[in-house]
């Protein structure tokens, strides 16, 4: 019997051990624990360039990135983060020329292969308005002419000052620069907006040759102007003035139009005058400075409701320039593009989103066409197309979609040769969705045995056993859980199934390009994507809210609601299935009849279990619109969340923040009127430069802070706490106000006399529990501030400055609140940050790290004790030691062990987000901006996980040895006991 019991115990131990193995954490999850994606953003210029046998695609993006992408694989070769608007891009002989910056202008030449900077020229900010920006190589020489600041300059490598400089005297915004013969021509819009102005400078000396106006009422880059470089034959500007049916052509250097061109001549087809007014021009040779001698362009027109595109070539005849029609093709619903590479044959490419086809049109013989596999619903329609040739000589079509996808297509395969999804570089908001854990036998049983579903106890018992048997069968079929599941369906299910530790969630991003994308937080694979557009225009998404979570026992899908803006700033709201991205409502997306000022999740749940969304409109009479717009939803909100307050006017530059109280309507309706509850007027001469509030719902594990003598300082936890930063106009300095967003009452203010906030030095803040952390740039002020630098300020709010004193009222009302006691400390930040965030854990027992996204691309986690404003100056007393305080040090350390991003350079981070895992020790941390990075952080150490050095083998051997000991020793002990009883 004893032997039987021992056997039972051993079996139990083994079962527990196996269970432990199945749920253990292993270090071989590298690349799944953290992942990184380097991005470039949506390109505004794309050029292909071949040099030394390799072809690269060079792009400048709206985010101020210059990048080189491998033409064969789409991989990022190199990128340079200029961080400012890039006004020009030109490629010559393995060199890349850029001009960037609006005020302080920089002209740089880069090595196309490595991306290293060869030389640069910095033009200080001009005294008057900056005059655009452009740059061009001078022939085959190393020299460059550029419009930098308010000057036209000629630059040479190795010279700190320009060869010559010609002041433009703010006469226009020059965005085009062409070098021809012995002259440099700068073409730009006139300062008075009346048309184009041409400045001609002598290339050798910089002497002003001519300065004259052309093309009344026309601007560059509108489809009504073109600059065509015909090499030795001159440079021509082609334009059509508004309400004119005649195209005019002007040769640069002459002071008047050269000749007129009529549609009939160009198209060899008669057009009705109204059709002539709709015709537009498109450049086909993207590299503006590439002189092919015979520049081509496309003219698109509509006749008899059919859209056609004509490819026209500018050629020199024996005595004068002429235009020749190369080809004409139907271009309904097509995006027409040209060659991204100088000299590439095949003039134009037309890419149709519907049907996903492309066709190359040129001089007939080289025409090619193809199809491509493409999910328009995920990436949007094609908005740009270009042709280029690889080093091996094959033609490629490069397409860019409205959503921000770049894809290279080839004639042989419908699958894109490579894709780059750059939409996430424009992410504006993201939300985490907790995924349901793998359906275990226990969950099957729970579902099967819910008394509400099955009333019979016997049936529930049988169901439970059946569920367990099914689970066992599946487990056995999967090779006892050891074999990898290769089934595609199983893989797709795994993408939307969580894990036991809560590490695998969906990170759902909304982007400015109209794409909603869900990525798995383990590995970063895309689970779904959806492109949102209203009337053909993409929706600029601003907010992503998860309004219904996964319900393990229910069948209703989780819901994500995105709020964005369509055309004319009209609010667009879409509800999607959070696991698949499928729209929940039928029909097309429609803009709402208002534009929201703020959008937020309301503290109320509708009939369908979805959290309601509030859209506040600003104006003379602000309103609160409840979404979904049903009377039932409004009633649910009024029943659950009254009184409800929100504030408006906390944007940058505002001088007054207004608080409103939502008034529930007497009759059924979906819109709530508001009454002004309070006004927070900033002191004279101050304007807002930043604001912060809590990021999502807060919870706290301990309501107080235990001091060394075991007394308690009670935390001041006010969910309505808001932070405002205001800059004084005259003598400078920044004031930070902590205020109550329900009553508008000022709770605390701090003055930073030496601080300054600007676009380069923004105000950053993060609020959690009773702590506010913010960062400000401090200028040096003699006698006041010791040094320039970034200062991190931490403020902790307590109910009283005395221990054990608490507001005993069980209810907290902002309308009858007591002021908090604020403890503040300032620290010197190690590096400038671009975003701040705080780690979140399941129960908030673990301490919180504040995560600084540094401009150097590091994610630095500063532990709670180092940011404690109660850190004492000088030696620690016994009580302070007992409290675990660390002596105050002014500078926060840049501890390499605390750099969450390891060696990655996470560039341009705009927001740091965090979500709790099921393990209390662990927090998921993500950063997005230009790049994406996800990892896990354990601020207090992985106290609830087995260490990597834990030997499971030892445990197994010990347990087996003990079991064997019990098994063998049991009978012996029993014999001895009997013998002793007889003695």
């Amino acid at each position, binding site marked *: 019997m004893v032997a039987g019991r021992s056997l039972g115990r051993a079996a139990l131990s083994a079962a527990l051990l196996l269970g432990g193995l199945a749920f253990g954490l292993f270090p071989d999850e590298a690349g799944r624990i953290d992942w990184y994606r380097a991005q470039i953003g949506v390109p505004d210029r794309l050029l292909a360039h071949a040099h030394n046998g390799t072809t690269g695609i060079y792009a400048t993006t709206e985010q101020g990135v210059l990048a080189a992408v491998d033409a064969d694989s789409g991989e990022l070769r190199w990128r340079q983060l200029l961080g400012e608007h890039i006004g020009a891009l030109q490629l010559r002989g393995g060199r890349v020329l850029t001009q960037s910056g609006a005020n302080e202008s920089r002209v740089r030449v880069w090595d196309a292969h490595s991306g290293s900077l060869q030389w640069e020229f910095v033009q200080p900010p001009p005294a008057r308005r900056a005059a655009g920006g452009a740059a061009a190589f001078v022939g085959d020489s190393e020299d460059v002419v550029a419009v930098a600041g308010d000057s036209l300059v000629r630059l040479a490598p190795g010279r700190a000052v320009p060869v010559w400089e010609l002041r433009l005297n703010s006469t226009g915004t020059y965005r085009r620069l062409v070098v021809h013969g012995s002259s440099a021509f700068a073409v730009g819009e006139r300062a008075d907006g009346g048309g184009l102005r041409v400045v001609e400078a002598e290339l050798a000396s910089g002497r002003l040759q001519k300065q004259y106006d052309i093309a009344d009422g026309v601007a560059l880059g509108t489809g009504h102007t073109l600059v065509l470089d015909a090499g030795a034959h001159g440079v021509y500007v082609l334009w059509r003035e508004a309400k004119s049916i005649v195209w005019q052509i002007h040769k640069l250097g002459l002071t008047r139009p050269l000749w007129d061109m009529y549609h009939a001549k160009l198209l060899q087809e008669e057009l009705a005058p109204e059709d002539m007014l709709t015709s537009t021009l498109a450049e086909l040779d993207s590299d503006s400075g590439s002189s092919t001698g015979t520049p081509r362009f496309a003219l698109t027109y509509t006749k008899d409701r059919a859209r056609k595109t004509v490819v026209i070539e500018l050629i020199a005849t024996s005595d004068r320039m002429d235009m020749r029609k190369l080809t004409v093709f139907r271009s309904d619903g097509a995006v027409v593009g040209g060659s991204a590479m100088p000299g590439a044959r095949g003039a134009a490419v037309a890419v149709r989103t519907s049907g996903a086809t492309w066709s190359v049109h040129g001089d007939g013989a080289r025409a090619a066409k193809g199809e491509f596999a493409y999910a328009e619903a995920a990436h949007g329609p094609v908005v740009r197309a270009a042709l280029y040739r690889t080093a091996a000589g094959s033609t490629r079509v490069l397409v860019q979609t409205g959503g921000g996808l770049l894809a290279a297509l080839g004639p042989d395969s419908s699958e894109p040769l490579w894709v780059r999804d750059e939409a996430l570089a424009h992410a504006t908001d993201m939300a985490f969705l907790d995924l349901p854990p793998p359906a275990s036998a226990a969950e099957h049983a729970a579902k099967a045995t819910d008394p509400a579903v099955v009333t019979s106890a016997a049936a529930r018992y049988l169901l439970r056993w059946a569920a367990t048997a099914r689970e066992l069968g599946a487990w056995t079929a999967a090779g006892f859980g050891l074999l990898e599941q290769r089934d595609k369906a199983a893989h797709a299910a795994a993408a939307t199934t969580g894990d036991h530790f809560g590490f695998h969630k969906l990170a759902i991003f909304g982007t400015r390009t109209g794409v909603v994308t869900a990525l798995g937080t383990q590995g970063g694979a895309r689970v779904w994507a959806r492109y949102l557009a209203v009337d053909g225009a993409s929706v600029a998404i601003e907010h992503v809210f998860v309004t219904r979570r996964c319900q393990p026992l229910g069948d209703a899908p989780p819901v994500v609601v995105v709020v964005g803006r369509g055309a004319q700033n009209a609010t667009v709201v879409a509800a999607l299935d959070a696991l698949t991205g499928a729209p929940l409502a039928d029909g097309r997306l429609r803009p709402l009849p208002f534009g929201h000022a703020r959008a937020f999740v309301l503290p109320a749940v509708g009939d369908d279990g979805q959290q309601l969304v509030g859209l506040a409109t600003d104006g003379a009479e602000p309103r609160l619109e409840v979404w979904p717009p049903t009377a039932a939803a409004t009633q649910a909100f009024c029943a659950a969340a009254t009184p409800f307050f929100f504030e408006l006017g906390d944007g940058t530059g505002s001088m007054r923040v207004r608080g409103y109280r939502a008034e529930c309507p007497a009759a059924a309706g979906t819109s709530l009127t508001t009454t002004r509850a309070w006004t927070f007027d900033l002191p004279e001469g101050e304007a807002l430069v930043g604001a912060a509030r809590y990021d999502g719902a807060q919870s706290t594990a301990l309501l107080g802070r235990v001091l060394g003598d075991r007394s308690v300082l009670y935390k001041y936890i006010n969910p309505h706490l808001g932070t405002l930063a205001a800059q004084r106009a005259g003598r400078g300095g920044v004031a930070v106000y902590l205020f109550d*967003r329900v009553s508008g009452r000022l709770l605390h203010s701090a003055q930073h006399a030496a601080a300054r906030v600007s676009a380069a030095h923004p105000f950053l803040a993060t609020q959690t529990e009773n702590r506010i952390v913010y960062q400000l740039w401090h200028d040096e002020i003699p006698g006041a501030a010791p040094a320039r630098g970034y200062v991190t300020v931490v403020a902790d709010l307590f109910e009283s400055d005395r221990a054990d004193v608490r507001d005993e009222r*069980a209810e907290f009302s902002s309308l009858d609140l007591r002021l908090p006691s604020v403890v503040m400390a300032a620290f010197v930040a190690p590096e400038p940050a671009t975003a701040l965030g705080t780690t979140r854990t399941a129960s908030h027992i673990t301490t919180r790290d504040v995560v600084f996204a540094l401009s150097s691309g590091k994610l630095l986690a500063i532990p709670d004790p180092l940011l404690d404003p109660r850190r004492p100056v000088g030696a620690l007393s016994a009580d302070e030691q007992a409290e675990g305080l660390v002596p105050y040090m002014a500078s926060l350390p840049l501890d390499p062990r605390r750099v969450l991003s390891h060696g990655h350079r996470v560039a341009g981070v705009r927001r740091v987000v965090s979500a709790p895992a099921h393990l209390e020790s662990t927090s998921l941390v993500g950063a997005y901006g230009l790049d994406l990075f996800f990892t896990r952080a354990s601020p207090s150490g992985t106290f609830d996980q087995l260490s990597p050095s834990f030997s499971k083998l030892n445990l197994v051997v010990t347990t087996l040895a003990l079991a064997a000991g019990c098994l063998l020793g049991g009978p012996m002990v029993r014999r001895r006991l009997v013998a002793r009883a007889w003695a």
Partner: protein
Amino acid sequence: MAPGNSRVYADLSPLVAKGKASGKAIKEPAGFDLQAALGGPGSAAAGHARNDTADAELRVKKAWEVAIGPGKSLPMQAFMAWMSGTSVSIFSILITGMILMSPLRAIMGVQQAFAGLERGGKSAKVDLTMQKAVFVAINLAGILFGMYRLSIMGLLPTTTSDWLAFLPPKTYVEYSA
């Protein structure tokens, strides 16, 4: 002695004769009842009462020793406690546990501790209430000392921080976004 009497006894009469012959009054050993030893009722009746008194005194005296016994170990315990320090460690907790448990166990077993002294042989029951009270008091002092140890080790929930986790969070009357 009648034949067939199966009683086995020791003949202790020489002790009596000897004592009388020498003329010396030899005090009988504590607990020795000559009358009982000789087996005859009524013999040495005079010494019986005297012996009972002495026995009771002796018991009381012994009871006092038992009563103040735990007090003697207190200094030792205090020394051990001092040596183990006030930090919360396995050793100091073991010592404190011992300091607390041994007086508790003694108080629980107070009746057994005095049972042998309270009632012995045929003599009358001795009233040891005072001794017991002192015994309990000294052990209580031991418990108090143990409690003091717990207190200075911070293991007694006597401060606000000990009840912080049970504090209900406030409810918020208003809503905001």
